[in-house]
């Protein structure tokens, strides 16, 4: 009887503590920071002959960090540190495809990051010469972000040579080269990318972009219909709605507003980049505290 009490009372106390304090804990989260890893040579020595495993650990850490920061806390991830970590991970194991995949998912919509991202992917191309994804990624980055169709075509050609899926590349390059329709091509690329990922945060990030692009494609189609009907470019998108061609202008998932350029292309004020409304202020608060 005594023994039972000795066990029951502390267990009861533990349960009460957990129930009471776990919601409290959730609300007062420590700021989540991504670590700065030691130099590659130090990592290599510390790995004690398990370079590939350490590389995998860094990738897992980056992946979990991004998932929690982006999808759960909805804060801006520390992209710079993430990139450096993935660079180190791929120095440790240049064949680690997970790292290249994550890097492409994270940085392919950050235009200033494209040159370093492409350099990272080139490292992967050297280590994985039979992997068509890597030239495919580089080509896509050249095309969509750097607006460099010549280089893009060169890499897409390399990807097509080693890819078993010839049809996909045929339709993609048709869209890119002949129709000159960037939006359609980008949608095709994103769909191909999303299909391959099982990471929910990456999927969420890319789906956001896909939906935005699909909205743009939808608007551009309606503008084309307007031109066909009226023989002229609409002054703005509202005119298309008034003409009864569409019900309403869809919302930009990034929070911007779609507008029409003189070229007939549709753009958005968000420029397809995520804005972190609360984050910066909260971050500053934490810093000043």
């Amino acid at each position, binding site marked *: 009887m005594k023994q039972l009490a000795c066990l029951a009372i502390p267990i009861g106390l533990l349960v009460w503590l957990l129930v009471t304090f776990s919601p409290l804990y959730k609300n007062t989260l420590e700021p989540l920071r991504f670590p700065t890893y030691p130099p590659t040579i130090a990592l290599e020595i510390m790995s004690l002959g398990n370079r590939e495993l350490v590389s995998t650990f860094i990738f897992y850490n980056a992946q979990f960090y991004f998932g929690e920061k982006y999808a759960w806390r909805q804060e801006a991830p520390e992209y710079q540190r993430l990139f450096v970590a993935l660079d180190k991970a791929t120095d440790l194991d240049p064949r680690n495809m997970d790292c290249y*995949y994550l890097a492409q998912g994270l940085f392919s919509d950050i235009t200033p990051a494209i040159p370093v991202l492409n350099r990272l992917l080139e490292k992967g191309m050297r280590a994985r010469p039979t992997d068509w994804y890597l030239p495919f990624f580089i080509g896509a980055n050249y095309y969509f972000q750097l607006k460099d169709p010549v280089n893009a075509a060169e890499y897409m050609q390399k990807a097509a040579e080693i890819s078993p899926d010839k049809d996909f590349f045929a339709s993609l390059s048709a869209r890119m080269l002949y129709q000159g329709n960037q939006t359609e091509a980008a949608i095709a690329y994103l769909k191909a990318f999303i299909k391959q990922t099982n990471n929910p945060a990456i999927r969420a990030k890319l789906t956001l972009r896909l939906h935005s692009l699909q909205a743009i494609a939808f608007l551009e189609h309606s503008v084309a219909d307007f031109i066909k009907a009226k023989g002229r470019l609409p002054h703005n998108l509202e005119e298309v709605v008034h003409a009864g061609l569409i019900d309403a202008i869809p919302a930009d998932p990034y929070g911007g507003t779609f507008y029409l350029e003189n070229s007939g292309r549709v753009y958005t004020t968000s420029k397809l980049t995520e804005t972190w409304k609360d984050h910066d202020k909260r971050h500053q608060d934490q810093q000043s505290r």
Partner: protein
Amino acid sequence: MHAFAAIWAIGIATMKGGLRDRLIQSLLLAGFFFLFSTMVFSSFSMRQPMEVAINYSLATVQILAVLITLFLGLNLLSREIESRAGHGVLTQPLSRSAYVLGKFFGLMLLCCIVVAFLALCAVIGVLLVRAGTPNAPLILWENFGLSLMGILLISLLLGAASLLFCAVATSAILPFLATIAIWVIGNSTQTVKNYLDANIADQAMTPQLKAIITGAYYVFPNLSLLDFKVYAIYGLPLAAAQVGFALTYGLAYTIVLLTLATRLFQTRDML
């Protein structure tokens, strides 16, 4: 003829000691659980669950095999000499060399058993992952086997090293720490040499330091040579000459350590 019987008998006794050691048993059990968690570990991979599974299981086998070798060296060699438990054997009509070789033989049997057990768990773990992975890439089992062979050789080499340190040390912990040092150094000489050869560090390094590092590269065992894991993980082709060279290197180095240990044990005063 008697020497062989003596080596055999001491080896078998040593093996029993290892298998009855609680610490070794718990490490083996840990290995069992680790290797069956391969499925969980590899499930977080986005693009290469098979590669991660092989990577994780081989790394687990390697780390546990080395840890077990280190503790075997501590419990069955250093402690035996420190605690005088070996006196019973040493005062029998047999040479010191037979004693040293018998201990090594026992260690070798244990390493083989440990690596075989962990390898079995690893293979089952990898097969489970493969069963759950659609379009799983082909696993090069011969490279997988060679990696295990390399791990076994690393264990034997470290076992011989700990025997050598036991021959000169008068405390149990010293050979243990020295063997760990050999493991760490042996895994990094190639890295540091590559770093030097790439001429990245030319400004920061004096020629003397460079000479010391180059010397260390040739004196200490190069365990990176015996590491074939990457060939198994990514199914890369492995040249027979490379395998032959590495295995010969590992064996030759082990024999050198063993010969030195035997020599030094000859003149050693037991505690």
